[in-house]
């Protein structure tokens, strides 16, 4: 341990958000002691991983402990014997001499996966007759099954967006990771920007933007309902400082802000607000999204996030504490709780007023929309808060709402370089003499509408004189009131 701590690289600490990786499969977890984690049909504890460097590969041993695995020792199949074709290979189902029970017995004895694979090879009568490529494939397949190795990596947009797209596409509106990558570039997301974000992608898009801004600048998250969903955001494990530049504003207050009747006194009630990583259940999410002829069934039964457990844990601790304590202290606690609630309420109001002021400056450096809602009304109202010559990007799972959005934006004006696009992503298998495309991904990744804001055309007074410029201010204010789309 002492020699290891001298080595470079960030280490896995208790409380960190980390991502478990096995081949192409990811799972985000919080590193907690004595907490059982189930991943890819295996259970284990992360206790032993604490103190190791991110990127370390572990082997799961009996009892669920993780043992760091050093450089992969390649199983050198000493016999380099191989066939040329499969003309004499018959599928009689008897090529493997080991029975299912034999294999189970080996596993029960705690024999290493590597050795089981070796035994399977030795007991396969057809292995030597297979071509070199087929042998390779056989070994790879068996390794995947019996050699349970898990790598613990640091979360990033790359990893989390790949994970969400593979595991829970319904929660991120089927936003494929290459599409998200386009959004970040088209939106010119970088340190120092003042961004407006409206997303219902579990906070993944927000997290991606926060990563690219590195805690510099500010982000205003517009949210529907009682509060912003940030389950995916918390998986990034951002430092506290990143959250100090993050603001939130309820969508339901946008119209009053635009018309100048906004008041912080009429906040939407947000009972769950203080649980930062609260996530909507799949059921309610799907219900709210009105799919007229949706036959596709989302099989999102498994929750990726462990964050909710953390919340439950706290509640359980509360209950246990209450049982043990006498009534008096309970009342005292209640009073403290009320005071705490009031304090938080005040804090929220203060921040809301601050956020409203930030929006009212109407000088945001960009707008990113990726939600389950129809994009047109969002764009028409939120673009009001964006400065001229700034990019905006709207994601939609479907093309048709973006066609409508495109038309309405063109009618309204104040935008140029409108582009409706989609990316296709193709993965390749690259192996000597066996290179070919792996799978075709088309359609499912969603569509983007992007553009750049410009100053609005002046109403019927487009004379290129200095006088026209002088009256620009009052005219634009008048126009602002006329064009309330709410």
């Amino acid at each position, binding site marked *: 341990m002492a020699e290891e701590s001298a080595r470079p690289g960030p280490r896995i600490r208790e409380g960190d958000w980390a991502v478990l990786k096995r081949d192409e499969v990811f799972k985000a977890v919080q590193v907690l002691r004595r907490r059982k984690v189930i991943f890819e049909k295996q259970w284990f504890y992360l206790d032993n991983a604490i103190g190791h460097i991110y990127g370390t590969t572990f082997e799961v041993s009996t009892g669920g402990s993780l043992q760091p695995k050093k450089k992969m020792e390649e199983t050198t199949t000493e016999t380099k014997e191989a066939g040329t074709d499969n003309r004499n290979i018959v599928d009689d189902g008897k090529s493997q001499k080991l029975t299912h029970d034999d294999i189970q017995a080996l596993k029960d004895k705690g024999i290493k996966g590597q050795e089981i694979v070796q035994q399977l090879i030795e007991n396969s009568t057809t292995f030597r007759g297979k071509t070199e490529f087929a042998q390779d494939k056989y070994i790879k397949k068996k390794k995947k099954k019996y050699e349970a190795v898990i790598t613990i990596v640091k979360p990033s947009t790359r990893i989390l967006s790949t994970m969400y797209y593979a595991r829970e596409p319904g929660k991120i509106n089927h936003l494929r990771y290459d599409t998200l990558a386009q959004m970040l*570039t088209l939106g010119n997301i970088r340190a*120092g920007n003042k961004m407006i974000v409206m997303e219902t992608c579990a906070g993944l898009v927000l997290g991606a933007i926060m990563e690219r801004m590195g805690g510099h600048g500010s982000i205003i998250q517009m949210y529907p309902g009682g509060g912003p969903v940030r389950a995916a955001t918390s998986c990034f494990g951002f430092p506290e400082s990143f959250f100090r530049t993050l603001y939130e504003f309820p969508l339901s207050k946008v119209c009053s802000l635009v018309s100048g009747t906004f008041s912080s006194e009429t906040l939407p009630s947000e009972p769950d607000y203080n649980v930062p990583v609260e996530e909507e259940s799949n059921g309610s999410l799907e219900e709210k999204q009105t799919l007229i002829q949706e036959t596709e069934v989302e099989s999102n039964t498994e929750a990726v996030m462990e964050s909710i457990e953390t919340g439950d844990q706290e509640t359980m601790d509360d209950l246990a504490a209450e049982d043990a304590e006498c009534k008096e202290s309970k009342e005292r606690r209640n009073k403290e709780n009320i005071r705490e609630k009031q304090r938080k309420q005040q804090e929220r109001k203060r921040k809301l007023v601050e956020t409203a002021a930030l929006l009212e400056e109407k000088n945001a450096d960009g707008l990113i929309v990726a939600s389950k809602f129809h994009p047109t009304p969002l764009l028409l109202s939120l673009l009001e808060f964006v400065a001229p010559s700034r990019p905006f990007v709207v994601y939609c799972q479907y093309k048709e709402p973006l066609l409508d959005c495109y038309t309405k934006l063109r009618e309204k004006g104040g935008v140029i370089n409108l582009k*409706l696009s989609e990316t296709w992503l193709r993965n390749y298998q690259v192996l000597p003499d066996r290179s070919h495309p792996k799978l075709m991904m088309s359609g499912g990744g969603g569509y983007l509408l992007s553009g750049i804001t410009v100053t609005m055309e002046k109403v019927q007074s487009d004379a290129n004189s200095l006088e026209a410029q002088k009256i620009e201010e009052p005219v634009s204010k008048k126009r602002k009131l006329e064009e309330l789309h709410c």
Partner: protein
Amino acid sequence: NKTITMSFVEYRDTIKDGDTAIVFLGHESMFPVKVQHGGKTQTKYGVIRHSTDLIGKRYGSKVTCSKGGWVFILHPTPELWTMNLPHRTQILYSTDISLITMMLELKPGSIVCESGTGSGSLSHAIIRTVAPTGHLYTVEFHQQRAEKAEEEFQEHKVEHLVTVKNQDVCKNGFGVSNVADAVFLDIPSPWEAIGHAKSALKIEGGRICSFSPCIEQVQRTCLAMEEHGFTEINTLESLLRVYNVRTVSLQIPDLGKAAEDNSGTGFDSSNQSNPESLYGILQQGTAQFKSGVPLKEMVGHTGYLTFATKSLF
């Protein structure tokens, strides 16, 4: 503070002397202009006088040219630069750049090595992303190109974020070791630079990407990556499909039914089962709808992107 900051890595509200601005004439028609007191720029709508038409105006303003036509003046971004830069080589476009940036996990503070610099299309995007605390080490073996790139970085006021080296990356590497979080290669024989890439990356590891147009190049690069102990080797290709938004009218065929039964077309608005159909108002035997029409031709291939991870073990 928005008045003293750099234009390519931070937004500014007004156009100033020395800025690079983008003149937007219309659909797919724009060009960069270096703003200078007393400067003039000729467009098809007439001349733009920098001192009166540009300096002091807000980015995003509509500027009326001498012949009465107008253009918009836009704030530069790496994406607009990519679409308008002077080509010295074949360049990378925003679709590939987006994927490269995300898959290399670039963010503010990242240290990146790149070769070759080429026309600086990707370089500008990297600088944008790693600013204000990161750095780009870019290597270009063509002396003129290296010099031109350096000039541009100065003009765009990002020179403090980038170091240009004029050397052969395959022979001499990146000139730095154990500092980079990410390495990007866009050279004809990337497999010869994988060893240098590995030593440029931090000891604890980092990400690498190689861009090659041909599968044979990818093949050799993947082998070299494997030999040098890179893991998570993954080859991708990304294609951009752009759609034109059109209102299309299709004629309703005359099946000779109208005379006998006026609800016979199936599209008739009186049809109760389909009152608000996909189709617009039925007029004079045509039906209208909005469509996203793919462009007649699209970019079918730029290059393969091979990504990998260097890890400590």
